[in-house]
């Protein structure tokens, strides 16, 4: 009897009485809570678009300083100074280890050719570090994950279209990391301008075949698909960041105050910050981590291993020929 009796879909049966294995979720949770979660986010965009402010607003704490050039005799920063800042935020007993990677100097110079190379290299370096740790014979039980899970790309709110440098960078980035485009400083666009701008941006991204997160996958159920569709309609998020509080109706909220109006960052009618925050932290955090591990890392890994095999095969051939 060589045929296997395993059918494609095992039948679902319910036990006669309560067994109790549904507490596995709690066991996992307990384990994970002890370990803590790791999330690495990278911000890419021109200087002065409010990247640092937005990160601080997202996580409601002062995590990074704005790196604008204040004195006239300081040289503008180079993209070679990519560093990761680590913070640990605790909320309700859940520890989130946050790595924020800022990319100073992107698009700052007069000649910006190749300014995306250090960024892509950094991302690939993280993948390769993880791969190396995985491939060692005696590897740690839990490999620290420095791979970039999400890349927030800041778009200049011109109201027209994307700039050539933006398209070039997006194309390169979408191949190696989850890219979430964001319209920065969206308080400079009225609602109609914002709608038109979003349409144009999405049309251009589609035309250039840039894949944005969230991706469609088969194992998503109806609800999640709907959620993804809604997110896709809203991309790119038009956000406003602020660390300072203003008083609206007697309550302090984060916002910006002008002589002619007050913007409430958390108001849905003013900007889409709430959606971005929910998307990043409340609904798709796990998804981002998983997609990085399963899709981007896997493709990187397979490419690397194939290349390794080829090079070792060539080396073997060479030694075989020489001997």
């Amino acid at each position, binding site marked *: 009897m060589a045929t296997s009796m395993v059918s494609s879909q095992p039948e679902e049966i319910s036990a006669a009485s309560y067994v109790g294995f549904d507490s596995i979720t709690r066991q996992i949770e307990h384990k994970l809570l002890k370990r803590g979660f790791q999330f690495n986010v990278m911000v890419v965009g021109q*200087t002065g678009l409010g990247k640092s402010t937005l990160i601080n607003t997202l996580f409601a704490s002062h995590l990074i300083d704005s790196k604008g050039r*204040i004195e006239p005799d300081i040289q503008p920063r180079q993209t070679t100074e990519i560093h990761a800042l680590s913070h640990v935020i605790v909320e309700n007993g859940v520890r989130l280890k946050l790595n924020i990677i800022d990319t100073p100097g992107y698009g700052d110079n007069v000649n910006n*050719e190749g300014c995306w190379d250090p960024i892509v290299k950094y991302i690939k370096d993280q993948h390769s570090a993880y791969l190396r740790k995985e491939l060692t014979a005696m590897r740690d039980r839990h490999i620290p994950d420095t791979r970039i899970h999400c890349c927030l790309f800041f778009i200049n709110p011109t109201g027209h279209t994307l700039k050539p440098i933006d398209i070039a960078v997006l194309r390169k980035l979408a191949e190696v990391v989850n890219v979430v485009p964001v319209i920065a*400083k969206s308080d*400079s666009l009225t609602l109609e301008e914002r709608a038109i701008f979003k349409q144009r941006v999405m049309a251009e991204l589609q035309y250039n075949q840039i894949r944005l997160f969230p991706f469609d996958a088969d194992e998503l159920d109806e609800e999640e698909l709907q959620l993804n569709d809604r997110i896709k309609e809203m991309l790119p998020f038009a956000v406003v960041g602020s660390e300072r509080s203003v008083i609206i109706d007697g309550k302090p909220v984060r916002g910006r105050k002008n*002589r002619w*109006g007050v913007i409430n960052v958390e108001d849905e009618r003013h900007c889409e910050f709430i959606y971005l925050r929910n998307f990043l932290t409340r609904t798709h955090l796990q998804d981002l981590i998983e997609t990085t591990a399963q899709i981007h890392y896997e493709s990187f890994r397979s490419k690397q291993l194939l290349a390794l095999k080829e090079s070792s095969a060539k080396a073997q051939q060479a030694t075989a020929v020489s001997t």
Partner: protein
Amino acid sequence: MSEGYYEHSNGNGTTNGTYGEGRSNAASPNGDSLHNSRAISPSGYPVKTEPGLNGNANAGSVQAQQPARKKLASWVGFSNLPNQVHRRSVRRGFQFVAMVVGESGLGKSTLINTLFETKLYQPKNVPAPGEDREIEENGVRLKLTVVDTPGFGDFVNNDESWKPIVDNIEARFDAYLEQENRVNRLKLVDNRVHACIYFIQPTGHSLKPIDIEFMRRLHTKVNLIPVIAKADTMTDDEIVLFKQRILSDIAHHGIRIFQPPQYENEDEETIQENEEIISKVPFAVVGSDTLVNSPDGRQVRGRAYPWGVIEVDNEDHCDFVKLRQMLVRTHMEELREHTNDVLYENYRTDKLKAMGVSQDETVFKETNPAAKQAEERALHEAKLAKMEAEMKMVFQQKVQEKEAKLKQSEEELYLRHREMKDALEKQRQELEDKKRRIESGRPLTPEKGSQKKRFGLGK
């Protein structure tokens, strides 16, 4: 304008020259002296006279120092001069060329439309270069040209992105220079760029390298007016800080932006206005060519957001009013003057020097054609005489040489002649000897000379 004037021509001079200059050739009793009068500045019209107009003229002398101020005995009427200039310039119309530079999407087209309250052109990505429009207000015609610079700073590699702009400005200067050098200069069309409005992105930090590079290259060629675009993105304190940083950046790199000049004898109000304008540079502007409803029910030009309405014409909201004031209402003529007197002159000097044209002083000396001819003839004759002398010298030299040579050969000939003579003499002697010997007795040795060769000379 002066009140209570009436047309009273006194034969005391008509104005010559364009509005703003005031060099009048007064038709004084002594016709050939050139008097220098003070330029009629837009501020005040000092009452003074030339000594020549009063009858005591200094014939042929050019007033080098300040002419003496004199009070008039009665009303003469040349205080009407500004009105005459005004009428003439209104008839001719004004010309203004503005250039807008900045990255795309900063609202350049919208700001131009807002400034001149008309839809001069549609905001899109490819407007025609150098749009010419003539607009009219209260009988004053303005030929306005707006030069747009699409694509500036939009590429990945923006090196030399200012080059087309610099080339355009210099080409306009060149065209004007050529017009000036024409034989017939009646129709001078001034297409030079009078003002360049540079749009700065509202990052909130400081100037970007491309901004600094551009401004460094252009501040000597055009009046630079930096503005902060889309200023509704920033709160008030952010704007203040940003302006400070921009100004310190500009000072650090030695960039000269357009400063409205201050005159001493202006009235209080103007001085205060000027100071206010200067304090707001660079202007934080917002542009809008559509009408929206403000919260208190008015229809205003502005932008409507869910959290408020920003009014373009409200001084509290943005600096648009100040920009318009400076650009159109008060300083348009200053900009044009500065372009003509300073920027264009510098360009011209540099260009002519580079071409090798130096200041030719002899052009200004008085020339008498007869004397000049005599001079030339004398010069020519002198040259001929010199040539002649030279040739004579050469000739003499050659003659001497030849003589010396001939002498030498003569001497040589004589020498040879004597030698030959001696030789012959000797031979004759020998022959005579032999003859005697033969006659005296036969020698035993046969002489080789038995065959007597007779070569005696004359024997």
